């Protein structure tokens, strides 16, 4: 033991050196900006020629938010968008994961199919859906007319509620594969002897799903839901390419609003305030989920 201590000291010293570069990068590009954006949200920032000037603004940015109609609408829309996306994506991804975990679905081909939408650049995805939704020549209108479901072209991105939901649809299509990958990995971590035991006890497929699959997947499901809701709150690329917030600002979600206020309107303090609302929202979400994760004692790994 005694001889080990010199070795251990060396390990600790090496540990500090080893983590230093990563810590420095994270401090400068993460910790500092996060703090700075809190400070900014209490300031009014003026662009004076080349430089910037700041004035203390108190809580004005935040009180302005409360009375701002567009902000409230964006907030509600973001919540709607996130809720629907999380529910639909989790449901669809679970089905896909179960299909791919079935002996018939284990072929490598399906894994490849799953990876394609995931790897696609979000902007490429947005351009693709812009073309699919195209009012005059888009395949969606042509297909629906061909099938006799609609009788004339629909301007998918032209009316408020419809446009938001079409963006949602494109985002869901892109998001399902990744969550399915996570759930698939979770499914494969469930020991097969549990299913064997359940079958011996006479459990049917649904009962096996309820009592073996779901409990075994609980942690993975929670991780998926956290990640998915965070991504849904961050949606930006699709809005930027598909609608730029139109029609009549009806597809402006929080992240897009914060960007527009800061970098188009150059109202930096106000933009930072919106960003921090988004931050708090995500933080609360993650706390809720981490809490939900805790009660079951799965503290296998400590230290």
């Amino acid at each position: 033991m005694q001889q080990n201590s010199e070795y251990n000291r060396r390990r600790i010293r090496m540990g500090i050196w080893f983590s230093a570069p990563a810590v420095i990068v994270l401090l400068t590009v993460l910790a500092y900006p996060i703090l700075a954006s809190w400070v900014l949200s209490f300031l009014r920032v003026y662009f004076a020629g080349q430089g910037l000037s700041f004035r203390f603004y108190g809580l004005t940015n935040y009180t302005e938010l409360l009375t701002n109609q567009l902000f409230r609408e964006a907030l509600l829309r973001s919540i709607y968008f996130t809720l629907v996306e999380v529910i639909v994506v989790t449901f669809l991804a679970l089905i896909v994961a179960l299909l791919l975990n079935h002996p018939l679905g284990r072929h490598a081909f399906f894994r490849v199919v799953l990876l394609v939408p995931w790897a696609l650049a979000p902007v490429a995805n947005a351009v693709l859906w812009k073309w699919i939704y195209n009012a005059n020549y888009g395949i969606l209108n042509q297909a629906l007319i061909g099938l006799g479901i609609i009788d004339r072209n629909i301007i998918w991105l032209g009316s408020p509620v419809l446009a938001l939901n079409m963006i949602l649809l494109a985002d869901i299509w892109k998001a399902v594969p990744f969550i399915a990958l996570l759930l698939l990995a979770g499914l494969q971590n469930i020991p097969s002897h549990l299913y064997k035991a359940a079958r011996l006890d006479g459990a049917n497929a649904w009962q096996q799903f309820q009592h073996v699959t779901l409990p075994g997947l609980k942690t993975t499901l929670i991780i998926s839901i956290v990640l998915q809701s965070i991504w849904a709150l961050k949606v930006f690329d699709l809005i930027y390419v598909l609608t730029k917030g139109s029609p009549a600002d009806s597809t402006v979600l929080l992240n897009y609003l914060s960007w527009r206020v800061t970098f188009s309107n150059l109202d930096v303090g106000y933009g930072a305030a919106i960003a921090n609302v988004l931050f708090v929202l995500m933080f609360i979400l993650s706390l809720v989920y981490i809490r939900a994760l805790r009660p079951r004692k799965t503290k296998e790994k400590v230290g």
Partner: protein
Amino acid sequence: MISYKHQLSRFFVRMGLAIFTCVALGPVIWAVVTSLLPLTALTSRPPDLNPLNMTLENYGLVLDSSRGLFSGLINSFIIATFTSAVGLVIGSMAAYALARLNMPGSSLILMMILATQMFPGIVIAIPLFLVMSRMGIVDTHFALILVYLSFTLPIVIWILKAFFESVPMELERAAAVDGAQPLQTFQHIVLPISLPPLFATGVFVFIEAWNEFFFAIILTRINVKTAPIAIAEFSGQYQTLYGQMLASAVLASIPVVFLAIIFRRFILEGFVEGAIKA
């Protein structure tokens, strides 16, 4: 003895798999087909899908240097390569320190890392933009690489830490008994058996950096426009050149989609090791 019920369930699984394949690949195939057709074929109703009309013309046009896509692809390549290389080097060192080197305050650092997944990019984008404009490094590769490290490093550390913890301690003890220094143990014992997860995370980071749009639009002006920026601008400027629009989207997606397919085993295993077990 295959029961009727069993066969029925197999039928439903097959159907489900077929629907899944069509829905997942359909839009992508449509994008590729569109990119190969001339404008007149796309604007006739129904679209003229005659394979004899297919041409690479759209690709030639979008790669013309005046369109900015070509330089965008090169910028994206430079940025994604450096981000994953730097991320792997400093990320694997930090991950090893957290997993094995009894680092003081390691649980705090881990919490910090987790927290980074929980905040919106816009929060750091605003102050970073102000600082970087003042330093005059907006619109440089360096600025984007640095920012991309901020959200990929935590993932690298997280996944690799989980992997390093799964390396049998005996292996490292044996090396120590043989007189190996900690650094040598890391270099000669741990790293060589960690190549698959290193590769997986490297590819993952490359794809993330290649595809990133939000920071790119804030931190680039003219010189380092990345491929996603070029595509987005194109789709805004030439909205009616559908074939070219899709050709540029396909071009920018080819590298990452192929990377994902080629390294699918690494990526899938990386997820199993990292995201779930962590």
